[in-house]
């Protein structure tokens, strides 16, 4: 039987609406198809996010995105079988917008509401898009930096966080570095562009903080603040150090878990230098690297819908549909083992 699922994402800077169709019981490239995946992003500024403005932005764009998503998919709203939305983790104000949108759609259409863990959605959509099987997942975005793998505990499956940042996410660190160095744009993209401008390849000595499988970026940021070195040189060193720290932590997790594949997901997964470093590490260990394609790297509605489909198809249960800012990946149990 064919099912149509609406996915709504609103945890941080992106409001996303997508329609996904599913045939059969298992999620795969052939059986699970993204019909449309529309999104609008709150622009980066020197001030960072202002939660209230973020919520306004999402509320303003939602209706248009929904209309576009339905048109592109060529379906009528009445054909929707379930509504999946991002339950958390994320920024409270923006989570509420997605929740309200999803809840009203569910009530209006009299269809089930499926609460999706945003972190798990990055992993599941990554597996769906890349065909990875039971990988060690490195989830890198603005607010998140985690090294994850599925593990069996008791009769159920759950994700275990092997390593993670002890302070800020790697994307946040790069955004902050971009702002401190007054780059254009003042964020991670600015850091990437400035690093490219630096041709000397002489590396400024900055802190390198790996605590076993965990990472910390605050020492690196303070050192950049204090340094008098050239801004392009600092941007270059910030990237080189931060990415090397991440690869080292992942390498240690890989040796500890013995996984055969490494998957990169999240907004930062797209960075070519990061991918190059991961490819080199994976090569050394005879491991395959899978990097999520651009369309599903940053936050988007399709990843929420795909995960919603998987939860419904596997009969996964949930306790609450309330949004949860601090929702973690390791608390939830699943019925799938891939």
């Amino acid at each position, binding site marked *: 039987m064919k099912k149509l699922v609406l996915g709504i994402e609103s945890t941080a800077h992106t409001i996303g609406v997508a329609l996904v169709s599913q045939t059969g019981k298992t999620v795969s490239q052939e059986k699970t198809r993204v019909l449309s995946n529309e999104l609008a992003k709150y622009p980066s500024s020197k001030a960072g996010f202002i939660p209230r403005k973020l919520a306004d932005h999402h509320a303003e764009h939602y209706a248009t995105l929904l209309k576009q998503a339905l048109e592109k998919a060529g379906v009528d709203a009445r054909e929707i079988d379930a509504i999946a939305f991002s339950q958390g983790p994320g920024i409270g104000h923006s989570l509420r917008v997605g929740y309200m949108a999803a809840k009203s759609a569910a009530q209006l259409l009299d269809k089930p509401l499926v609460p999706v863990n945003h972190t798990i959605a990055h992993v599941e959509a990554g597996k769906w898009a890349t065909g990875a099987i039971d990988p060690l997942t490195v989830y890198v975005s603005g607010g998140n930096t985690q090294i994850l793998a599925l593990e069996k505990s008791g009769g159920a499956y759950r994700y275990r966080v092997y390593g993670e940042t002890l302070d800020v996410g790697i994307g946040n660190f790069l955004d902050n570095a971009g702002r401190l160095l007054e780059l254009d744009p003042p964020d991670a993209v600015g850091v990437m562009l400035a690093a490219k401008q630096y041709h000397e390849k*002489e590396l400024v000595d900055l802190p390198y903080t790996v605590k076993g499988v965990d990472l910390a970026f605050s020492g690196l940021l303070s050192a950049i603040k204090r340094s008098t070195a050239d801004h392009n040189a600092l941007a270059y060193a910030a990237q080189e150090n931060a990415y090397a720290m991440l690869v080292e932590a992942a390498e240690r997790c890989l040796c*500890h878990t013995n996984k055969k594949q490494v998957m990169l997901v999240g907004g930062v997964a797209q960075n070519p230098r990061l991918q190059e470093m991961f490819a080199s590490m994976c090569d050394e260990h005879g491991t395959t690297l899978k990097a999520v394609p651009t369309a599903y790297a940053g936050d988007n509605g399709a990843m929420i819908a795909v995960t919603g489909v998987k939860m419904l198809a596997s009969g996964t249960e949930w306790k609450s549909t309330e949004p949860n800012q601090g929702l973690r990946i390791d608390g939830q149990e699943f019925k799938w083992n891939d």
Partner: protein
Amino acid sequence: MKKFDGGAEATLYETTFEGKPALAKKRAPKNYRHPQLDERLRSRRTRQEAKILRAAKPEANVPELYGETKYELIESRVDGVLLRKRLEKKGGATECCEAGRQLGLLHGAGIVHGDYSTSNVLVGRKVTVIDFGLGSFSNELEKRAEDILLFKKSLQAREDELFPSFAEGYATAMDKKEAQGVLERANVIISRARYAQR
């Protein structure tokens, strides 16, 4: 030289030192890192590990250091299986308890390990601690607690079952109150992590 074992950071080769079986621990270059960063990390860590092995030897079960060069250590060969492998089978509480005690002895000697996981504890005739590349000399509560946490996480699915034995062993090696303080700080670090259950 015959390869003995390969970890994330270094490769071990079988060798001998003055007729005794020994291991050569080589930190090979990592192509993913910038060459300058790579050089810095490998030489710093090799030097640091040598210093720590010398200081730790009289206090806890660690390999004996025979010699060092810029990127290579020669150390005594300790036979045994990794605690991680041992825990793939049932049981293991006694070994975890001893792993806790060994960590307590190191902390008492002013040494923190920096990567105290079940992949860095060898179970043979004795329980031996290896791999001090991320170690440092410190009595800081925070750094001690990080060692505890790394071990806890590395127990994976058997965390609830085996961590109490580890904590018990840890507390036998030092002052009860001091040990309690470290274990409490470990909980504070967990609650500080992003999106922790508070």
